[in-house]
């Protein structure tokens, strides 16, 4: 399969925040980083806090890595690789995401 699933309009995501999308059975956290005009998509499940909450975290940068801080216990996950900065043995999935004429789309 090689199709892009449309999730929402880009303006539905407030600048520099995230939303959670249902993609099949999966929960995907999508972030709109307005400062670089880029989208990122990672799993919504926080494997440390063990709850589906990452889309509600604050995003930002640590050095030159963009990441999200889990709203539960504040561990950082790299938005591009899914690696946990505090414990590099912990990874979460990352997904391909794009902006297509104002639409946010996930590759599935």
């Amino acid at each position, binding site marked *: 399969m090689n199709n892009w699933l449309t*999730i*929402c309009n880009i303006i*539905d*995501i*407030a*600048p*520099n*925040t995230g*939303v*959670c*999308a*249902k993609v099949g*059975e*999966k*929960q*995907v956290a*999508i972030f709109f*980083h307005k*400062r*670089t005009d880029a989208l990122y998509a990672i*799993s*919504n*499940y926080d*494997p440390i*806090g*063990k*709850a*589906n*909450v990452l889309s*509600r*975290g*604050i*995003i*930002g*940068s*640590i*050095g030159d890595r*963009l990441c999200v*801080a889990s*709203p*539960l216990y*504040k561990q950082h996950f790299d938005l591009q690789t*899914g690696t946990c900065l505090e414990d590099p043995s912990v*990874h*979460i*999935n990352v997904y391909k995401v794009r902006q297509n004429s104002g639409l946010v789309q996930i590759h599935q």
Partner: protein
Amino acid sequence: MKKQRILVVGNGMVGNKLIDNLIQADHHHIDIMAFSGEPRLAYDRVHLTSYLTGNHAQDLALVDADYYQQHQVHFSLNDKVTQIDPLAQTVTTESGRLESYDKLVLATGSYPFVPPISGNDQEHCHVYRTLEDLDAIKRSSQRSRAGVVIGGGLLGLEAANAIQNLGLETHIVEFAPRLMAVQLDQEGGDLLRRKIEAMGVTVHTQKVTTEIVAGETLRYRMNFNDGSHLETDMIVFSAGIRPQDKLARAADIAVGERGGIEINQYCQTSHANIYAIGECALWQQQIFGLVAPGYQMAKVAAQHILSPEQTTPFTGADMSTKLKLLGVDVASIGEVHGKTEGTLSYTYKDDIEQVYKHLIVSSDKKKIVGVVLVGDTQAYSNLLQIRQNGMPLPNNPSVLILPNLVNDDSAAIGVEALPDKAIICSCFDVSKAAIKQAIISGCVNMADLKASTNASTGCGGCSALAKQVLDSELAKLGVEVNNHLCEHFAYSRQELSDLIRVQQIKTFEALLARYGNGHGCEVCKPTVGSILASFWNDYILQQEHLELQDTNDLYLGNMQKDGTYSVVPRIPAGEITPERLIVLGEVARDFNLYSKITGGQRIDLFGAQLNDLPAIWQRLVDAGFETGHAYGKSLRTVKSCVGSAWCRYGVQDSMECAIDLENRYKGLRSPHKLKFAVSGCTRECAEAQSKDIGVIATDKGWNLFICGNGGMRPRHADLFATDLDTTTLIRYIDRLLMFYIRTADRLQRTSVWLENLDGGIDYLKDIIIDDKLGLGAELEQAMADSISKYQCEWKTTLESPEKRQRFQHFINSSERDDGVQFIEIRHQKSPAPKGNTLEIDKPVTA
């Protein structure tokens, strides 16, 4: 090579320190075995009393079994050594173990002396030395009304404090004419006594107990040799300690006339391969009843065992002490009983503030001989360092104890003047040179310093001095003490707050562009969000502020461990009509929410899913509720007692005052949360003295207390102003809160803010009450602006369809989070244990 076998008898503070020193230095060539007479490994006896105020045994532990095992230290618990055979070089234990040694270390400590009074062995007679003793005291106290401590020394006072905290009517019985006879002179002792009696502890001096018999009104009666008597339910003996030297005596190891195992400068006993350290050891006819000298002995003995030639000898130790006993500051340095010839002395006495300071100097006015401080111990570190390092005294030594009226530092030696060898932390033997070394290896704050040198992690008495040395050394190296908020802003919170206010910056975007770099993070974003809200008080979920809101603010609720939220409507001062109470019940029932009365006099409904929050709040807002800001760093609750409206003792209407205060400051964003309370009279049922702002009614108006704290590190609030009318009360609170908002650090409660404020409470009084900086009007205006912009964030949110839209778990589906699951406990729902949450999206890579 055969390993050297070392046996350590006694696993108290000092025995454990020795083992730690040994394994730090070399654990490959030695084989260590420890015997503990107690059912556990070493714990912090110095902080024993904290066991009665909430610390658990494991909080006090100094070492855990894993650490010993990792370093191949064998140990046997609850197993006293009963015999030493110096010829065969073996020891025998209670459990029948026979172990041989190359080196034997006695660290058996001391035992509490119980005077031979008939009846001293009854069920509710205790000593105060081990965790088990404290358990027994606690049990007795539950069946007692009054308690007596026999002995008014350091430990006796500590025990008395503990008994009073357990809720007992407390007495101290001392046979000497004053309290703390060893450390204080008569006047110091007298002042201490007055202060302690003011706390409700009765002190009986010059009383020799002759017998303990059955009492008439209470359980026991203590008869004194002067014919008088005292009744009590419980007795704690704290009449001094005796070195635990029985074992050594039986093995013909030399002991002193009055007890104590004799040692030389390397801590060796009369048998060269047997050492003694800590409170059981006698050095030049002296026993040291403090932990720091014991730690020094442990260091010397460990060195001597491993490399005898390179050992720095033990040369005695300083017995100076600084303590807070029953809330009274007391300190003593050096020799204070006039045993030194031809001394001169200076005395400062203030009967109003209840301060006594006595400084004894040598006849040539060049050296400090001794010092007694009661009621104000600020001068302690200064005086101690001067004495220990033989530093020159000022021409007129009296300035060393005179109060600093003009606020100059002429009397302070200045830490720069301290020599490198000056010991800053005596518990861990950390010198100024060691602190400098730590800085070179990268230490830039107290936390680093504690981690790398242990300084200030023992009795804590050195923390102010250690910080001064650290800061001054950092400054010397040109290292600016870094108080930058985070990597994105090279400014402190206070500096950012000034920039935002003065430059009229209204968004994070603008601030980042002008003063920051990178993209921000979860530290700076909420901090800036809070500052913007404090000054401009815009709706926090406005599009451009959304990214700044921390977990809880983002959805106007507190996130729980399973990702659901709690709902806390404001219930000012805890007053609620039956109708509203019913609404809360109905909402909780209809949305299946777990319900609980909080510690802040209101009601919390837990387990709401994101999708339900708007509907829940709609019902609450319709019934007249407002948001309780339980999620914000902002005003939480103003607790109140019923006050004069109902209570027969109330002298003012505390409810009205509390409700007014809560409504005035609700929604005010601040560096940390704010809690207030108002009590209707001095009985203080609202616990106002543990709050950031505490108000207590008097017959003339209100007393204002500030900067109290419960929580992790409780702090009693300070009395700030008395008998205020309501207008003045509010003016002071306005000014104080705005000043706090402008100057505090991120997540700094008012308690810590005050403790870090240069000039402390007096400075604050200058600014708030006397308006010395002329800021008063401006601060009041800033508060008025903030108040005028108040809105109930939930009401605003519900009015906007777009804002409501955000409250969904999925952006592309109206389903809920299926990871959230509940079980039922005590007839209400509760989050299912974490293992049960569905992990739908397992990563493929490991």
